[in-house]
């Protein structure tokens, strides 16, 4: 299944990364304390300009997964009970709001308060999208997905990629360090390490639980170890290296000095992105359903 689900790998990783970027852009500076930093504000205001095109491309790529994309307008009809309808609605809302915010930032439309308000709506819709994506995969007939593995992997991917993507955007745009920004980098470093820790501790526990829960769960675990063992190891090594290196670079403060340290955060982000893409491929390839085969 892994190779045929590449469209979903790209779609879920990109949209979760975008949601995480907006979450971190809003939340992390709140913990930095102190006054508002004009450089940070200016960089934050530009996040939507980076994310809007990525989201539009991701949404278009998701249409490639459909056999009949021309019927896509029907996808919100089962909003009463289908998690996939919820995901499409939330994803569409998130993408629309991000594009609106990007346009407002670019053209200077509306007041700062209005744009900040839209920013919060973007965060809320992004969270709703990630939650509904998680619910899409919690199928009672697919034990490996209907386990703690799904919410752990999706939420960690969202926040870890979001932290590093946001840090990379700041590193690209910020011209001058400030005390506030230094605090923000350090908080981002701690968050990065904490998320890596969550992943390393909870995933083995979740996989072990899956192995004892059901025959079908065990079949998925066997698939992961026998056929996907290298991919899982690669994902772990890249995540560890990327997040660890990223946390170090962030803690020692990313600032523009001939681009050296900024390059460090780009490398860290790249390593973690590859790790998450590999991990998501493993997620889809580990699909085993109860009952009869197709």
């Amino acid at each position, binding site marked *: 299944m892994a190779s045929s689900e590449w469209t979903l790998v790209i779609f879920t990783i990109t949209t979760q990364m975008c949601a995480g970027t907006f979450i971190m852009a809003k939340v992390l500076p709140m913990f930095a304390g102190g006054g508002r930093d004009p450089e940070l504000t200016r960089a934050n205001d530009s996040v939507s300009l980076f994310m809007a095109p990525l989201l539009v491309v991701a949404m278009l790529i998701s249409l490639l*997964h*459909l*056999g*009949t*994309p021309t*019927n*896509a307008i*029907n*996808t*919100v*009809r*089962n909003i009463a*009970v*289908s*998690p*996939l*309808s919820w995901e*499409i609605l939330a994803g569409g809302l998130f993408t629309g709001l991000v594009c609106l915010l990007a346009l407002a930032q670019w053209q200077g439309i509306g007041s700062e308060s209005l744009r900040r308000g839209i920013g919060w709506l973007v965060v809320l819709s992004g969270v709703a999208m990630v939650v509904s994506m998680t619910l*899409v995969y919690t*199928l*009672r*007939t*697919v034990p490996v997905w209907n386990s703690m593995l799904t919410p752990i992997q999706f939420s960690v991917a969202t926040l870890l990629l979001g932290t590093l993507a946001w840090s990379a955007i700041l590193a690209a745009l910020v011209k001058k360090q400030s005390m506030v920004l230094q605090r923000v980098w350090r908080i981002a470093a701690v968050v990065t390490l904490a998320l890596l820790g969550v992943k390393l501790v909870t995933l083995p526990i979740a996989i072990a639980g899956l192995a004892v829960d059901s*025959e079908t769960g065990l079949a998925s675990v066997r698939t992961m170890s026998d056929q996907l063992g290298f991919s899982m190891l690669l994902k772990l090594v890249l995540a560890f290296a990327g997040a660890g290196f990223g946390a170090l670079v962030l803690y020692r403060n990313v600032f523009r000095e001939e681009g050296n340290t900024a390059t460090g955060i780009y490398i860290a982000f790249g390593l973690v992105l590859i790790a998450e893409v590999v991990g998501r491929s493993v997620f889809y390839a580990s*699909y085993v*359903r*109860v*009952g*009869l*085969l*197709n």
Partner: protein
Amino acid sequence: MLKMKQPTFYLDLSLCTGCRTCMIACKDRWDLKKGVNWRRVTEYAGGDWKKDGNTYLQSVFAYFLSISCNHCEKPICVEKCPTTAMHKRDDGVVLIDPDKCIGCRYCEWACPYGAPQYDEELGKMTKCNFCVDYLEKGGSPACVASCPNRALHYGELEDLKKRFGGTSDIAPLPDPVLTLPNLLLVPQKDARPWDSDDGRISNPEEG
């Protein structure tokens, strides 16, 4: 709309030889393409030979299940379909509306019986529709009419239960609690319960 409350397939496992005439009749009736099988025959087999003193005792068993769509009481496909293309009618039949289907294959991921089948040429999901057009004219589903051993029948759920009993709790089918399938199977002597690990599907390549 059918006059039945819930049409149901009924299969006597002691009569089914796995000949797959039902499968071929369905493919022929609906002109299904290669790889699209609205009815599938699964062989479940197990057992072993064990030394007992100077001789060997065997517990080898095998039986066949001919399964299409069970038009479940709690159809997970209907629940998950984002477009409502998959829907359960008032007469109990679960159908796909091709005008709404986007071919996302979410129902295929979800259904534990493998009922929804993706038609690559159409770009949409397809599945057993109980030959409702035949039933509306007083006929039988193509699979039932073709069964040479008269193992496969259909009828009103409550009527079949009263006349023959039957269960859907048979391996390698999944736990019936998941979707409440409207399917009645008369077990043969070696039939195992759904959660048995005594046997394995012998023809996984057929699905």
